[in-house]
């Protein structure tokens, strides 16, 4: 021990320390990841889970931890469920581009199979809501009227009456629903991504979720009275257009009305002077 202390200022000491740290980290990694694999629930398709695990290690583990246990930057994914993974990755929110107030929708670089593989791996870590089937998110036979009532009560305060999105606190915002697929809307209600509250099957049963999805989809196809959507964000853009466009036009008219008349003809100006 005393020899190490006496050589701690040796030029090679830093390299030795880094090398030692890497060896320790590697040993710990193999031990922990081996333990994780053996503890995984065998219910899932094992090849899909192992493919998902390797994809997770490549793309997710740097923030969420090698065993999805979470780090200072990112939450634990144990118990998050496959629906949360599918929502976050199919909308391009994950992997995150940077650490910000929230992650916006962007094109995803993963195929659906890859996303389902990672979802399968996360699901194998235990519990959480599952990805809904196409029948669960279909609008067939849905009650759009009840969907409208439920949307107004539970969704419109953040996403707006037409699902155009809106601002929240401290740089966060509720996104527009115009690009969302029925599956993503269902998953968002089920898992409550980011600041969004959870609307589980106990509070909004699957049939009512289908009604809400049917309303969101049908609203997209509604005609815009007057011909322009103005973003469908409601009074903000309408007011902006009214004040800047409408009032500005009236001000210009008033300026024209009260402007001093130019004399166009030479003789006329001589006559008046």
């Amino acid at each position: 021990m005393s020899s190490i202390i006496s050589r701690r200022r040796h030029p090679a000491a830093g390299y030795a320390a880094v090398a030692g740290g890497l060896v320790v980290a590697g040993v710990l990694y193999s031990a922990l990841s081996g333990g994780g694999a053996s503890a995984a629930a065998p219910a899932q398709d094992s090849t899909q889970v192992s493919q998902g695990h390797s994809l997770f290690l490549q793309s997710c583990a740097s923030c969420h931890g090698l065993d999805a246990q979470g780090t200072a930057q990112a939450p634990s994914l144990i118990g998050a469920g496959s629906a949360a993974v599918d929502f976050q990755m199919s909308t391009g929110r994950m992997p995150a581009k940077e650490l910000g107030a929230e992650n916006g929708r962007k094109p995803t670089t993963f195929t659906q199979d890859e996303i389902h593989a990672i979802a399968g791996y996360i699901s194998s870590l235990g519990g959480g809501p599952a990805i809904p089937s196409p029948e669960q998110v279909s609008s067939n036979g849905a009650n759009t009227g009840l969907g409208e009532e439920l949307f107004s009560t539970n969704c419109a305060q953040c996403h707006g009456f037409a699902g155009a999105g809106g601002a929240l606190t401290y740089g966060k915002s509720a996104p527009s629903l115009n690009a969302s697929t029925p599956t993503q809307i269902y998953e968002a209600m089920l898992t409550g991504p980011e600041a969004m509250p959870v609307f589980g099957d106990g509070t909004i049963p699957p049939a009512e979720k289908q009604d809400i999805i049917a309303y969101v989809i049908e609203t997209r196809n509604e005609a815009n009275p007057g011909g322009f959507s103005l973003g469908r964000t409601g009074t903000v853009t309408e007011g902006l257009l009214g004040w800047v466009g409408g009032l500005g036009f009236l001000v210009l008219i008033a300026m024209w009305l009260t402007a001093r008349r130019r004399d166009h003809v030479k003789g006329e100006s001589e006559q008046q002077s």
Partner: protein
Amino acid sequence: MSETPEEPAGPRRVIGTPSPAPKAVDVRTEPDRPAFSAEPENSRHAKNAERIVAVLFVIAFFAGVGFIAAYVGLEIGIGTIPKGANPVVAVLRSNLALGTSLSIALLALGAGSLIWVRHLTPNIEIAEERHDLRSDPEDRKAFQREFAEGAAISQVTRRPLVRRTLLLATAPLALAPLVLLRDLGPLPQTSLRHTVWKKGLRAVTLGGLRPLTPADISTPGSLITVIPEGFQNDADALAKAGVILIKFAPGELHVPTNYDGGTLVSTMNWTIDNIVAYSKICTHVGCPVALYEQTTHHILCPCHQSTFDAANGANVIFGPAARALPQLPLMLDSAGFIAAASDFTQPVGPSFWERG
């Protein structure tokens, strides 16, 4: 900022008043002001302006005819629109045609009139003398004399019985508008302090009208709007009784405290299994407040950005609201459903005069 030495001597100009204009001859008061002829101008400019005005008036004519045609031609009533057509689309189309044609007609008429005035009529400035508003002394004397004569002829001064009964007859009519003010009442009494919530009244979801067990709201971060059971069609009751239920993870919900008559009252026992119920009516001006962020536990009001901390008794942490959102005490009824343990202990919604 010092004054330039070239500035002519004279009274100092007060900041904000117009600078002294160069002395101009006021043609309006000149006795020998030039007479403006009403003869038409025949310059090229005047002829162009005349044509533009005429074109605008013709456009206004056709747009006006178009308005009538659209009113008569575009059917909007069910039964009169073609079979299979969408009545909403028919109304939208009719509104668009009516609005467009009328706008064009009025705009073209106005623009034509303006161009007429600005480019065809001679540019004359006419001043009108301002006279004293008070009448001449002779006129005033004559009026007084005629008024006194009229009063004498009508006998109103000599027959007090007629005069007094006339006043009596008009008195109720004069008071009638004051009586109509009664329609502003009655006073709300204590109705602003209470809602229909009472002990044992179940909370049901708004929309699905289903009662809830704590297991239905088991995921932390859940939010749902509930109303008192059986009042879904009572708009007066719902205006005050809307409630949001929020589920917290264990340990996230801090003990909300309340001062009731100077005594500190814990409201932790108002929650069930980390489910807490707050009034959905903002204490600022009464907007429905349900923008709940499960990451920060903020409840944001969309109208004026009042922000409440749901984990700490919905205290105000930002915005114009003056008070925390009132909390509804919860209990489980005999069937295991979430119900109110009592009414709200404070008035819900915005301030009112007698609230104190």
